[in-house]
């Protein structure tokens, strides 16, 4: 199973490093990253595998949200099922 992590906010040094480190800490394996910066606005979408995750998925969601708040970013972590349900028949 996978989850989608989206990160948005003002661009500063080290955003990818911090988010990746948190994923590693919780054993969420990053399988895809798409990232861009537009007029100092940072936007990233990561797809991570959550089968081997170290904690309950909802706690991982909380941890990522908190990481965003600590760094002035907005981080959403959502189970892939929601995208598959909405966009695939």
């Amino acid at each position, binding site marked *: 199973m996978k989850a*989608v992590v989206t990160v948005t906010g003002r661009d500063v040094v080290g955003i990818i490093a911090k988010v990746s480190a948190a994923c590693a800490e919780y054993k969420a394996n990053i399988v895809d990253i798409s990232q861009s910066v537009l007029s100092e606005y940072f936007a990233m*979408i990561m797809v991570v595998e959550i089968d081997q995750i170290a904690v309950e*998925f*909802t706690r991982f969601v909380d941890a990522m949200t908190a990481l965003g708040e600590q760094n002035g970013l907005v981080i959403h972590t*959502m*189970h892939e*099922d929601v995208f598959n349900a*909405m*966009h695939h028949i």
Partner: protein
Amino acid sequence: MLNMNDILETIHMIEGENLDIRTITMGISLLDCASEDEDRFCDKIYDKITRRAEHLVSVGEEIEKMYGIPIVNKRVSVTPLAIAGGALSPDGFVRAAKTLDRAADTLGINFIGGFGALVHKGFTIGDRNLLAAIPQALSETGKVCSSVNVASTKAGINMDAVKQMGDIIKETAYLTRDNDSIGCAKLVVFTNVPEDNPFMAGAFHGVGEPDGVINVGVSGPGVVASAIRRAGDCDFSTLADIIKKTAFKITRMGQLVAYEASRRLDTPFGIVDLSLAPTPAIGDSVAHILEGMGLERCGAHGTTAALALLNDAVKKGGVMASSHVGGLSGAFIPVSEDQGMIDAVSCGSLTLDKLEAMTAVCSVGLDMIAIPGDTPAEVICGIIADEISIGVANTKTTAVRVIPAWGKKPGDMVSFGGLLGYAPVMKLNEMSPAAFIARGGRIPAPIHSLKN
């Protein structure tokens, strides 16, 4: 395979367009709680509700976090109390209502529905006792919702019940006069009432339902309004297709949440209700969808056609997205819960007569409409009879939830707070239908009810 555009679209719907799951409602049968001992009945219903729905709120919150979609309400509906508690006295029904309220507090839910009766063909003793208890029950509880089905296409209209509901609404308004007559916001008069509706105040758990069931109501007027806005000038076929595609996506979200809630709560999945349910929040209005189609204001001539197109397209899009569709499934047009409707009434564009016409093509009826506090009971009965006739003749659900706001006059504002919103008091036709209402008896079922 996850597509980046799809991911961004979903997140934008949730973050920018108010997409949410409006309610997960657990239906619970109270038929096995029947007892002629009032204490025992109250104990049994409290125990069953709090046991069955013990994890409803926590599971709802877990799903909310897992999928990143807000689930605004977690609620419970129960077997109509007039059936489960058929042996109770009026005082007993008031106690039972307070027990439901206490159970709702224990569970942490915001409404519990089912303090009602089905009287479309006549009254049982239990029905009469429950109806007598409604005003006091609604004034002495905060979370209990009541609905009374007074007609059906098969049975015709029980005009004795219509007459009685006029008095009950007036008395409820008086007993809750210190709070803008809010008791009436929790009381709905129905025809052809669905037995699996997850939305309040009309939700109850029908007698043909299993012991427990999970029904989900989706929302998303903001998403539909944005899709229409983005489409710009297009013809009606294209417009209908855009609404269908959007409704499909919204409903798939509801189906996913319903399936997951059903699995985690070990309770069968019932239905997804496709209704577009507005809230007073900016960008969450059904009126604004209609205005987005090209009407200067909701209520303009053309509004009924626009609503008919919307309602039909939402159903066509939604029906393939869910394995079981039910409940009310149509666009809601509650005045106080929809900023666009409130504005349209305030500026004089939307009148009660136009609202009545609109209910012929959408799902509910005259919903959350504040009327002058000195409205005579028989005028309220006339409003109910008209609205119920539309439902009976068209083989559809219609309902009336009007609030004769105590001490208020046309143009005054009443405020109910939260999702119930606020509303300007609407002017009524003051001619009296008293002699018509006083006839009593039943209006026979229409000829097209004989389908066998």
